[in-house]
């Protein structure tokens, strides 16, 4: 695979991670192209969320290399790592909104800490971001007053606040009804079209991933066992891959 630095904002090489005796990543390697959306599928507890937390530096790998925006992050100090984190947006599984802050304050939080824009400009930017995810009418609400889908939308607006080059989604449609899940999927497609960011989406929603991803990778026993487009993987002769797609289409 030929690669120059700018072509691949995310490069993972021979990544290994274990918790006690449980090995969750076992020599995983993955590259994500600029503007590409990769869906990471696999069984629960298979290390998919750990993979995202390694990329953003919330956890450290036991071995292997993680390059984000052309920089190896495994040996960075906290301050340097924070500079990389500003280039990454992260949507957590339960949205992880700060429950003591209102919707608009949640979205304003990264802006107020990392930019020097005036309060007026910041408020305008917050409204724009919330409008982008369809939440501009609920700016004063508290997270506890929002449904799961609405929380995910606000979480997405917060993740987009610093105009990141990379977006990481941890199960963006988990726990949502099919209509809301489809709306979140449409939002990802819309963002992809508008912002041309690189994204990794960890999900169990195969049909959703089929719609918004450029490539799917399937994790099993800590490594990628298959990758490609939905149609390619569906016809795989590998027993685990075939079984995974058979059950997911039920």
């Amino acid at each position: 695979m030929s690669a120059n630095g700018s072509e691949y904002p995310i490069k993972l090489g021979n990544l290994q991670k274990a918790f006690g005796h449980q090995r969750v990543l076992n020599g995983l390697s993955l590259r994500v192209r600029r503007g590409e959306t990769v869906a990471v599928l696999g069984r629960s507890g298979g290390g998919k969320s750990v993979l995202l937390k390694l990329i953003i530096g919330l956890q450290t790998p036991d071995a292997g290399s993680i390059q984000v925006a052309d920089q190896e992050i495994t040996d960075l100090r906290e301050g340097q790592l924070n500079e990389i984190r500003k280039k990454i947006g992260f949507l957590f599984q339960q949205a992880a909104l700060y429950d003591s802050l209102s919707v608009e304050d949640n979205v304003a939080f990264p802006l107020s800490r990392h930019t020097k824009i005036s309060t007026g400009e910041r408020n305008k930017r917050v409204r724009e971001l919330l409008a982008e995810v369809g939440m501009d009418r609920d700016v004063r609400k508290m997270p506890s007053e929002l449904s799961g889908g609405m929380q995910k939308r606000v979480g997405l607006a917060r993740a987009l606040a610093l105009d990141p080059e990379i977006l990481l989604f941890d199960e963006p449609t988990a726990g949502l009804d099919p209509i809301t899940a489809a709306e979140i999927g449409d939002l990802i497609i819309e963002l992809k079209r508008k912002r041309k960011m690189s994204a990794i989406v960890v999900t169990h929603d195969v049909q959703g991933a089929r719609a918004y991803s450029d490539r799917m990778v399937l994790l099993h026993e800590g490594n990628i066992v298959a990758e490609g487009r939905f149609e390619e993987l569906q016809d795989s002769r590998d027993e685990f891959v075939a079984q995974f797609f058979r059950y997911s289409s039920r």
Partner: protein
Amino acid sequence: MIHLPIIVFAATSSAAIIGGHLRDKVPIIRNVFVGFFEWFGELGLFCGRLLRAAITPPYEFGELLRQCDAIGSKSLPLVALAGAATGVVLSLQTRDSLIRFGAKAFLPAVIVFSIVKESGPIITGLIVSGRVGAGIGAELGSMKVTEQIDAMEASAVDPYRFLVATRVLACTLMLPVLTVASNFFGILTGWLANTLAEPISLRLFLEDGFKNMAFSDYIPPIVKPTVFGLTIGIVSCFQGIRTRGGTEGVGRSATSSVVLSSLFVILADVILVRLILTVWG
């Protein structure tokens, strides 16, 4: 973790009493010891990270002010009430004892000395341990299990700077202020209870109470609450931020924050009394 020394002692002695099966108990005792030292080791690392976050810029003044309000002004009614109750009880109890020994004239001095040097700081410390310790433990614990702390770190904001340092500093700054308030209400109600039994003007009561106070007598009400505040802040933030295991874990953190904060406040009081007596006489 709270009762580790007791558990260690109980485990060791019960193993010895049961006898004959000591070899079977070795892994349990070893685990308890490991847990005990692990807790202190983690606390040391936590304090190191907290210190770095507290002394290096950027400083979170807005959040510090918010925490000072949450910890200080919102604890004031409870602290004032506790201080006032202490003043009344101290006045009623001491009056009776002093009359028996023919030393009734010392009542204002005894009340002022007791409140300013000991009961004011310790009661304020224990009240704040309960109210603020539980609040911080539960809040940070809940943020931890719902990934809000991870989200903050992912947003390139150091949670130690934004959440921990501000709370610890607010506790350290507010405890002396709350102690002054507690002392004020304690002395006031002490005078009230006294004057109901035997009228005495407030001015005379205060003059009698404070005339023998030396500079060294003002050290405990400054040093003790500051150390208590620091202790409460560190212990409850530490218990909160290391929460594991969902809502049950949050409950455990809130409880252990209160119990451990109170325990360490009492321990600090014992050490400080000895230290202050040694240094300032």
